[in-house]
């Protein structure tokens, strides 16, 4: 159901240039807040990284396991609410405990949902994600007493970021949140990359390519699909924990079906089946959206046109650009 540009095994080869590029990007990201004191860009890049993580988590599901989730942002939202509620009602200072509780809670929600969903595949799976997503969205939206309904969760405390008793700074400072997000996202990226390149990842790709054949060679397809789903949901929930720390706020609009389609768009923009492509997609999407909506009050027209042109002329996404140029040169 999808075309991918990744060839199994190729990423395991050693490329000094690639490593150099990764270090360059990471260093420039890490140094950015010290070069520029423009807090707007610090916030923007924080948001891009968080959505990049979310897009990557969806890509694990879509690009590697071949399962489409319409509303992956739901699980980001659930975790953000859980972390927020934990900090507000239980302990306003324990950041790590809150994040841990949020991820565990989201996993507990995602597990039964995943268990039901993996019994199907293809479009039925996708529609189930929509059904459950809408259900969670409406519950959050209408449960005013707990979630704050349409107004969202407010009054989030700003816990200090500490590591093994070592105080790193308050989360109310955008620079701290930026660095914290960068660290967590980088760790998640490399962990996911490791998992995807392991035999487990190969099984997921086998399921994507042909479920029947995968089951013939003795793979428990449902079990692996469920594991893939849980991996994606846990990554999304980490994005959710970062989101609420960064925004200090979470509302139902973050969990809506339209926001979900936005995340899907990021993955497509970056190119399915490419982990760093998902980040590129999120970066481009958020920047374009921000840029266009500042330029004109009719931003919807231009965003729509942008999406249409992109799908028509760059279907393999940003990650596929290289192949496109290669083909162009040959021709």
């Amino acid at each position, binding site marked *: 159901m999808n075309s991918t540009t990744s060839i199994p095994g190729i990423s395991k080869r050693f490329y000094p240039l690639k490593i150099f590029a990764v270090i360059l990007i990471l260093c420039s990201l890490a140094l950015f807040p010290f070069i520029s004191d423009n807090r707007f860009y610090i916030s923007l890049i924080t948001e891009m990284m968080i959505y990049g993580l979310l897009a990557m988590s969806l890509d694990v599901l879509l690009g590697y396991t071949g399962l489409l989730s319409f509303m992956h942002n739901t699980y980001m939202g659930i975790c953000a609410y859980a972390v927020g509620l934990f900090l507000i009602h239980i302990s306003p200072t324990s950041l790590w405990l809150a994040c841990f509780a949020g991820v565990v809670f989201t996993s507990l929600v995602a597990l039964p949902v995943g268990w039901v969903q993996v019994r199907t595949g293809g479009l*039925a799976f996708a529609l*189930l994600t929509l059904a*459950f997503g809408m259900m969670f969205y*409406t519950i959050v939206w209408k449960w005013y007493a707990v979630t704050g309904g349409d107004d969202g969760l407010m009054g989030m405390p700003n816990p200090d970021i500490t590591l093994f008793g070592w105080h790193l700074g308050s989360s109310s400072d955008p620079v701290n949140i930026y660095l914290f997000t960068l660290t967590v996202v980088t760790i998640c990226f490399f962990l996911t990359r490791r998992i995807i390149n392991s035999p487990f990842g190969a099984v997921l790709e086998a399921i994507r390519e042909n479920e029947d054949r995968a089951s013939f060679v003795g793979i428990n397809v449902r079990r692996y699909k469920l594991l893939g789903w849980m991996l994606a949901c846990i990554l999304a929930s980490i994005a959710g924990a970062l989101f609420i720390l960064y925004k200090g706020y979470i509302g139902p609009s973050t969990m809506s079906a339209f926001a979900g*389609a936005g995340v899907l*768009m990021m993955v497509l923009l970056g190119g399915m089946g490419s982990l760093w492509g998902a980040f590129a997609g999120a970066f481009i999407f958020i920047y374009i959206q921000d840029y266009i909506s500042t330029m004109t009050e009719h931003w919807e027209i231009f965003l729509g046109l942008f999406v*249409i042109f992109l799908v*028509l002329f760059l279907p393999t996404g940003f990650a596929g650009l290289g192949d496109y140029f290669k083909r162009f040169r040959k021709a």
Partner: protein
Amino acid sequence: MSGTFSIAIDLLLNSLVLSGVFLIVAMGLNIIYGLSRIMNMSHGALYAVGAYIGYSLVATGVNYFAALIITPILVGIIGLLIERTIILPMRKRSMVYTLILTYGLMFFLDGMIKHIWGNRPRFIELPEFMQGMISILGTQYPVYRLMTLFMIAAIMIALMLLLSKTKAGIIMRAASTIPEMVSCMGINMSYVHMGAFMLGCAMAGAAGIIAGPLTTIDPLMGGEMLISSFVVVVIGGLGSLRGAVIAAILIGFVQTFTEFFITDLAMVIVFIMMAVILAFMPRGLLGEGKFE
């Protein structure tokens, strides 16, 4: 005024009207999906376009009934343009791409609506005889709401006749089950897809002008209708026309009755119902949906 029986009739009619509007929109979505495997995310926006075109026609002095005929044709033509320009090149690609493409189209159409008609709500001016109330089974009910039921029934009958009696309809039905066979018969599937897309868009336009006077016309009407019709289509089973009828009636009744009796939980119950139904019947009530 507050007899239990008349309230029951009120609720029954309200449910039917709501179901009817859902049905027409969902039917259009289903025809497009059933024949060409495209989930049209811009369907809600086309519904809004229909309502606005209807408003403009009536506001410039066109008779309401004439507008009722012209609007679906115009929206169908818009559908034709969309299909030939941007959907056609996407035929061979995965469904995900058309999904995102039509999602972009939805933004574009919504933006255009705001650009042309502005943000404020509009109301379609109805002919005098449709504005009043009528006494039916002991309750006073608005004439127009009752009339929409007849209009929707008429559209559904026309659609049924089209699909069962005309050659185009038979080709369409055949194409939804075995497209390869239809192309073997020497019929250009491209035209079948085009016809299906036009018909689906025309249905959205018809729903727009019928539902316009019921509530109000504003730029947000499309997005909301898209979600509702999606729920109907998914519960009924993708591409299943009969399933859509059952699901539309189910959702219309559940939504109306929960709004009346347990107001605070109205939408929650609809979506929990959807999740439960799909959990047990992943392909919907009358699942004829196939994946690609």
